[in-house]
């Protein structure tokens, strides 16, 4: 196999920290090559070197088809060499049309009037969809498209920069927001692309995904490349990535469960995309909520936190009635409900404030316009044990949250709410975009909280996360519970239940096996 992309001798140092040490690997023609590594392994730094955001130290070489790129990488130069980058969450602008999204940055104008030749642009865009063998309406705004079509548009857009049957597409955490079904579609499309000879460099947190789709995998650990070779299953990848064996916690249950009144009971909930929902969680029970994207399962944590208004329904927490239709965030917190939202940057943490201040917010927040001084010492004393238990790195309550890695930020969100000793913990995708090490710690912390009698609801579309955490799982359809899976549940069973009757076929299954044989 000839090499499409060759990286050699990449070193990056920030201050006195060596982030990358002499990293080098090759991506072959027509292969999907995955790059994995824990948060803090230098993986995102390497990607930023490849996309030109950071500069590598002298001595680094980045070659495409044998021709060296000028360093630092400049996007236009990389594009000329046939390298395309798809950024996080597909990198599309939702309000713009498919055509505009496809052609932005490449638009050509008539010579005199400087008007855009939309006919030519449309033809160029259509050519790409022809190459993929897919059809997407060019004039539809992207937010109107289904997730699968959006994935197609992102691939088509990247494909424009690669020569037919050549070039390289870098996917930088592009697939993390995709549901399982869209993911299958995504790799179906991508399979055709690599089959034609284009190479793919895949950066992903999901080891399951990587193990399924990658032809070869490069693993970064502590700034150095530790292995480059064929994937050996998700467990094998985790072992190489962490340099140790994962503890056996990857299944639901396994924690003690105290008896008592139900921690939370929701009945006849209507509104916020729900229609007659009833859920009951016992103390110490971890209940998963899942379903297709519009089934309403992901609204439940928010309605419990008082931010998704409902028209009708009853709620009782630990036996006490709570007014559901007039529930405010402050009242929900007062009733002992804690929400860990899915969107960490928008709803989880104030990124330019410190760990300590973020964690204390639920306490200070309820006191509105209080003018008595905050007791800082007791504030920190209450927090530090949680930072220890969640193994926050660096373990500094004065660190600004935005400087932490994604996994550590998520630990702060968890510490913020667990330190309130909640009666009900409502989680929305608690381990998304978090590396395996942090995921392990977060799962253990949630189970510890359950063992002390806290009821837990986990709304998630990630079957692996659900399988790790939950005692039982409720599958939603059209705003109500359609099916209950008693635990422990295997990821395959969860996906099967979500898509009812569609089997969880391996991503990119058939073709790769065929190619190998």
């Amino acid at each position: 196999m000839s090499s499409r992309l060759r990286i050699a001798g990449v070193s990056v140092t920030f201050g006195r920290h060596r982030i990358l040490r002499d990293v080098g690997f090759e991506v072959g023609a027509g292969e999907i090559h995955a790059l994995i590594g824990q948060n803090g392994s230098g993986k995102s730094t390497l990607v930023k070197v490849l996309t030109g955001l950071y500069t590598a130290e002298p001595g680094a070489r980045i070659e495409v088809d044998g021709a060296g790129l000028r360093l630092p990488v400049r996007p236009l130069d990389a594009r000329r060499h046939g390298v395309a980058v798809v950024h996080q969450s597909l990198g599309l602008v939702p309000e713009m049309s498919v055509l505009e999204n496809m052609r932005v940055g490449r638009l050509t104008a008539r010579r005199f009037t400087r008007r855009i030749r939309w006919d030519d642009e449309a033809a160029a865009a259509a050519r790409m969809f022809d190459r993929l063998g897919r059809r997407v309406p060019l004039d539809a705004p992207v937010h109107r498209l289904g997730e699968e079509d959006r994935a197609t548009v992102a691939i088509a857009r990247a494909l424009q920069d690669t020569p037919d049957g050549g070039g390289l597409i870098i996917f930088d955490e592009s697939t993390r927001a995709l549901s399982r079904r869209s993911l299958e579609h995504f790799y179906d499309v991508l399979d055709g692309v690599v089959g034609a000879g284009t190479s793919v460099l895949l950066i992903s947190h999901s080891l399951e995904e990587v193990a399924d789709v990658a032809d070869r995998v490069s693993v970064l650990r502590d700034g150095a490349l530790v292995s480059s070779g064929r994937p050996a299953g998700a467990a094998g990848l985790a072992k190489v990535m962490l340099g140790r064996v994962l503890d056996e916690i990857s299944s639901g249950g396994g924690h003690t469960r105290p008896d008592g009144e139900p921690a939370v009971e929701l009945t006849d909930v209507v509104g916020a995309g729900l229609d007659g929902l009833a859920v009951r969680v016992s103390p110490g029970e971890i209940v998963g909520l899942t379903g297709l994207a519009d089934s309403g399962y992901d609204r439940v944590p928010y309605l419990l936190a008082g931010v998704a208004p409902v028209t009708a329904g009853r709620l009782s927490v630990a036996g006490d009635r709570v007014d559901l239709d007039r529930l405010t965030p402050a009242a929900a917190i007062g009733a002992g409900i804690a929400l860990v939202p899915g969107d960490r940057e928008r709803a989880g943490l104030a990124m330019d404030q410190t760990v300590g201040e973020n964690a204390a917010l639920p306490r200070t927040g309820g006191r509105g316009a209080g003018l008595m001084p905050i007791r800082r010492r007791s504030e920190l004393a209450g927090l530090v044990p949680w930072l220890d238990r969640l193994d926050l790195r660096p373990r500094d309550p004065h660190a600004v949250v935005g400087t932490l890695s994604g996994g550590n930020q998520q630990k702060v969100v968890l510490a913020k709410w667990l330190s309130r000793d909640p009666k009900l913990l409502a989680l929305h995708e608690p381990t998304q975009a978090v590396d395996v090490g942090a995921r392990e710690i977060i799962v253990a912390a949630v189970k510890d909280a359950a063992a002390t009698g806290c009821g837990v609801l986990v709304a998630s579309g990630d079957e692996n996360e659900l399988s790790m955490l939950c005692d039982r799982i409720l599958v939603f359809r059209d705003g109500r519970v359609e099916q209950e899976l008693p635990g422990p549940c295997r990821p395959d069973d969860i996906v099967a239940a979500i898509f009812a009757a569609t089997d969880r076929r391996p991503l990119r299954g058939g073709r790769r096996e065929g190619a190998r044989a």
Partner: protein
Amino acid sequence: MNSRSNPTLHPGARVAEPRTAPPETVRRSYGHLGSRFAAIGFWLALTVLYAVLTPDTFLTAGTFQTIFGSQQALVFLTAALLCTIIVGEFVDMSVASNFGFAAVLVAVLNVNHHWNVGLATAAAIAVSTLVGLVNGWLTVRLGVNTIVVTLGMGTFLLGLGLWITDLTPVSGLPAGFAQIALFTVGGLPIGFYEGLVLMLAFAYVMTFTPLGRNMRFVGANREVSRLAGVRVNRLRLGAFTVAGLIAGTGGVISAAATGGFDATVSQSYLLPIFAATFLGTAILEPGRFNPLGTLIAVYFLATGILGLQLLGASGWVSSVFYGGVLVIAVTISTLLHRKVR
């Protein structure tokens, strides 16, 4: 990153693992200290420079009194601006006009309409507070763009001020009323202490109380604050209202100091308040809007301009200085903010 030295770490060992403070934490706090006080050092250096260049005029009690005694209006205005800027409303363009309108109103009511001066004061401050409330209601409840609302409101008030004064300065406030601004304590007019007390109280609220903490979080991330039980909209509305109250109070004190007011004067404060507020983010708490940093910035700017004037520069110097400092201060603030992240 280099603390990941223990590859056999497992959950049971998490708590017990001893951790020594990495040396970079210590270095970072020195660097932190440096950026906190760099601007103050620069201020002192500027003072020394002027003292050396013009020892006869700069090193006098008069200079000291001019720098510290004449900035009461700016101190009140920056405090008003900080109220809204801290809760994340980018700029309230109406504070200067609101200030000016209160100053004009108290003079017109007392001098032209012969109201009791106390009553006129109360009326002027009430009107300014109401203006703040209206600003807040439009931006918070109706969601109108802050800059548009406050720019419009500012121009509207400026026009009203010119109308009620017939385009001429009003003067003739009673001499006794001037004592609320000019009564001398320890060589400085009481207006200086009023500004100082205002900023100290503001700093206390911001640093030590739940209210201050909540204001900062609302500014940093509204959704996070809302989910934590903070009543975000009430806080924003309150910030606009208090901004009006502070601007109005400052206006009345300014009118008292000069015995009257010229409606057009307030416009010349607009740029200096932005310059001082943004320069304040480079002082004491780098990258954050903070009251004491802003207070220091006000006197920093006053020193710079007075020194240049003593060196022979004329009327143009304040525009050049304030404008230049605003651009430089915003740049520094942006860079500091990036560094903090």
